[in-house]
């Protein structure tokens, strides 16, 4: 979890319009939340969090949803109808082992699915090649599957 927080800090420092949305269960985010109180938002449920991300995007923000894959699976309808079909600039960090989530999300329109080998840290280490930051610079929804992190 520490690795993920460090990397989120890097991303939020680099992109001024980035905001982080998380669910109650994500209690391991204290360090990040304390540092960026005005840019990290807690939500009571994953379905409302998905649609709230669309609200942020309507104001030109780049919401980064940090949530477990299993919880995101509860909100696939919102992901498809709210984010993928209108093609909004929302990035999703799905942490933990999901059940074939890359395939299911990959079938939705407009969204790109990334499965960085070795998790986010490995992706950022190769940032010179623009592998991961490129996904943030480009407009559109991206789903990062970090199975095995932490």
């Amino acid at each position, binding site marked *: 979890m520490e690795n993920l927080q460090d990397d989120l800090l890097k991303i939020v420092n680099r992109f001024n319009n980035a905001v982080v949305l998380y669910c109650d269960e994500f209690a391991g985010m204290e360090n990040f939340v304390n540092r960026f109180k005005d840019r990290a938002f807690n939500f009571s449920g994953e*379905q409302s969090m998905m649609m709230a991300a*669309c609200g942020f995007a309507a104001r030109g923000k780049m919401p980064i949803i940090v949530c477990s894959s299993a919880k995101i699976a509860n909100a696939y309808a919102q992901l498809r*109808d709210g984010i993928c079909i209108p093609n909004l600039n929302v990035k999703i960090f799905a942490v933990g082992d999901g059940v074939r989530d890359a395939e299911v999300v990959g079938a939705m329109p407009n969204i790109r699915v990334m499965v960085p080998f070795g998790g986010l840290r490995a992706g950022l280490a190769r940032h010179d090649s623009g592998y991961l930051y490129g996904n943030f610079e480009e407009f559109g929804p991206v789903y990062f599957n970090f199975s095995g992190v932490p």
Partner: protein
Amino acid sequence: MLEKKAAQIRLLALESVYKAGVGNVGNLMSSVEILTALYYGEIFGRKIMKVDPTKPGWSGQDYLILSKVEAAPLQYAVLADLGFFDKSELAFLGRAGSILKEYPSGKAPGVTGTILSKGYGLSFAVGLVLALKMEKKGNKVFVLLSAEELRQGQVWEAIIAAAYHRLDNLIVFVDDPAVEVDVSQPVKIHVGQVQDKFKVFGWDVAQVIDGHNFDQLLSGLDKSFKTVRKPSCIWCHTIAGKGIEFAERKTGYLNAILSEGEMLEILSKFNVSA
């Protein structure tokens, strides 16, 4: 003046759903006065909603999010009347290639957010208000919610989140249309006295006994504008199919459109040639 405007909007919306061939006349007509009060109403000479037809994406504008997706033709009728787009566009509602869809489409000028299904709008508005708070902007965000949607869990997640984040520039209209009980229709689960539950979650609640009376609607809005550190809910008791005598309170017209004969009757009532 507002009554006259409401009649115009009612007719525009009825014509557009009639031409489209799909629509929910009963559900549509119950919200006419709410939308008219929002877009055209004034409190002490100040416009309630700040919108500018010449600048559709203006950052200083107020927002209306339709969680009640079936009311989309109504919002399109208002926006066309205000001059966001030409009234002739209304004839292509729901057609392939048209900017106006049967649901609120973010591609239509003046509409914020694409809401494809019921119950999504309030969560969308919570995100929008949080983004505005982050920018330290005081733009108001209005939401039109139907009482039916309060059966969905996602709406309650958003209600809790709005109270937790103290979103005082979020104002939610709950449209609670009265319908006659029809024994031939399947019984729907009734949501009961939900107004009190909003209060328990930390919302400010204003009751509007007649959701078709502009004085009551404007006084409810005035009350909610004065609320601080709390989101507000304006609970409007309305009548399904209001303004069409034969469709008022009838469940059969809730999710239907008018036939050709009925449409001609309405047009003659409004003194318009077909």
